[in-house]
């Protein structure tokens, strides 16, 4: 049961191998994985939109889509049809090439990241030994594409939104990369497969530095895909819809798909790095992966259902003045924990981290004017 998909693929390969030359077999094995990834990407995106609307609905005491299909299960199909049939407007002053290229180039990295995510025991499509760095490289290319979208549509709101979201993504990339360093310290390799194997007996989230690193990574991941409390760049009330203002129909669907795929890969990677990927006692490995990833996605939607949007300066302040120093101290604590080992290391790491957390929160106390006394006119 655990190796269900792997055996399926091998069976398919044997089938093909019967009447095809060997190079075609290896090519088809690549194509099968790529096909599975792309189908997974599209399938995930469709049903994440439904899940998000249902969860946020239930949090606000309403039901969420249940008209189309049994429990609204066909709602994504309806959305897809609506989006595909909507007229695709290209604004007159817009730059044809950029306006067309931006949605295409935003989906490419979103899909490429799936190659590195370990969906189950030896179910990683491409187990690079620089897996994690590959993830950061791919997620950093989206900044340029967002510029293209914002600049290509020659619209003040779009370019403003583009600049804002790029500034946000860059300032959240730094703490994100630094928060992963403790995991590399303890595992010693960048490949996601090895990281998951190293968490067989102890998930990293249970260690003090692991918990803090997980929180920092997850927060930065949420900010990286412009979601929930950090969605200032595409906030309807602020600048219309940020960099994808001028996109409609199929192009907007691509942006929408890329956003959800990024959200999925962030949740998947947080699960891989800190919650032990597909490690789990009874259930088959890939089921464990799905459970963990979807619980983290639930947390993302939970944020969206609760937290108000951050102001631009609060958002930047949080990244540079809170998350970055905390990530640096976290590396120190992780080093200490691994060097000392055992309860002494655990305790010292915990003390350092809690101390720095309290200190940083004291420093970052936003300016609250003291109580004002009103002198009433007599």
């Amino acid at each position: 049961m655990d190796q269900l998909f792997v055996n399926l693929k091998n069976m398919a390969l044997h089938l093909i191998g019967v009447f095809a030359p060997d190079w075609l077999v290896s090519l088809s094995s690549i194509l099968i994985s790529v096909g599975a990834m792309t189908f997974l990407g599209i399938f995930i995106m469709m049903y994440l939109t439904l899940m998000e609307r249902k969860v946020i609905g239930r949090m606000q005491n309403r039901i969420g889509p249940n008209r189309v299909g049994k429990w609204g299960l066909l709602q994504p199909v309806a959305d897809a049809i609506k989006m595909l049939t909507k007229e695709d407007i290209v604004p007159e002053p817009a730059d044809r090439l950029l306006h067309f290229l931006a949605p295409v180039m935003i989906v490419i990295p979103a899909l490429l990241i799936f190659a590195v995510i370990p969906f189950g025991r030896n179910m990683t499509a491409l187990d690079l030994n620089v897996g994690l760095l590959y993830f950061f490289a791919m997620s950093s290319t989206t900044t340029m594409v967002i510029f293209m979208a914002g600049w290509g549509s020659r619209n003040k709101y779009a370019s403003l939104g583009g600049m804002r979201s790029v500034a946000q993504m860059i300032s959240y990339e730094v703490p994100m990369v630094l928060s992963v360093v403790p995991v590399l310290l303890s595992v010693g390799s960048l490949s996601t497969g090895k990281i998951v194997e190293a968490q067989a007996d102890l998930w990293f989230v249970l260690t003090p530095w692991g918990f803090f690193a997980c929180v920092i990574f997850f927060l930065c991941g949420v900010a990286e895909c412009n979601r929930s409390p950090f969605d200032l760049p595409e906030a309807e009330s602020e600048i219309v819809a940020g960099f994808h203002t001028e996109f409609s129909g199929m192009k907007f669907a691509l942006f929408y798909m890329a956003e959800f795929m990024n959200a999925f890969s962030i949740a998947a990677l947080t699960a891989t790095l800190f919650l032990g990927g597909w490690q789990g006692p009874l259930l088959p490995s890939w089921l464990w992966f799905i459970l963990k990833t979807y619980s983290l996605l639930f947390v993302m939607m939970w944020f969206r259902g609760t937290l108000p949007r951050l102001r631009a300066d609060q958002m930047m302040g949080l990244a540079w003045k809170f998350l970055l120093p905390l990530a640096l101290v976290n590396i120190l604590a992780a080093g200490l924990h691994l060097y000392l080992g055992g309860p002494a290391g655990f305790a010292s790491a915990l003390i350092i981290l809690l101390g720095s957390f309290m200190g940083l929160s004291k420093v970052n106390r936003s300016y609250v004017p003291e109580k004002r006394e009103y002198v009433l006119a007599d």
Partner: protein
Amino acid sequence: MESLQVLVKAGIYILMAAGSLAAIGAVFFPNLFYAGLSLAGVLICVAGIYLSAGADFLAMVQILIYVGAVMTLIIYAIMLTNIEEIKVSHLGIKQILLSILAVSGFAVLTASAILSIDWRPLSGQNRLEVHELGAALMSRYIFPFEVLGILLFAVLIGAIVIARKDKV
């Protein structure tokens, strides 16, 4: 398996061709934004070349640093400086031809030098593991690494001071 290698070789040559085309684009596009984007194309092709040459850590670092950060810097600069002037971004046709002539002379010279030497790659080279790179970085090349750190720190402060608006 060798037929798959043919595929990979073809892929590398395609990458090289795309890279050189994008490089020519980066240089000769009047619209600076297109030039920036074709530079990004070059960077991604060069990352592909690194992969084929066995330096996958370098390929990822290249994409991360170049396409992630340097491209954003360049595009910020393009958007913040005067946009109308983009149209006039090339010298007269005569200077362009002259410079192409000069550069192609240099290129022919170097190409003949490259082709004349017999590059025999050392045998027994296996793909470098990332931790070997890290170990070497920390042991043999610790000095350039520290100097680089200090330099980047200086650049960080310098760039902010220069670009700051209000001369306080």
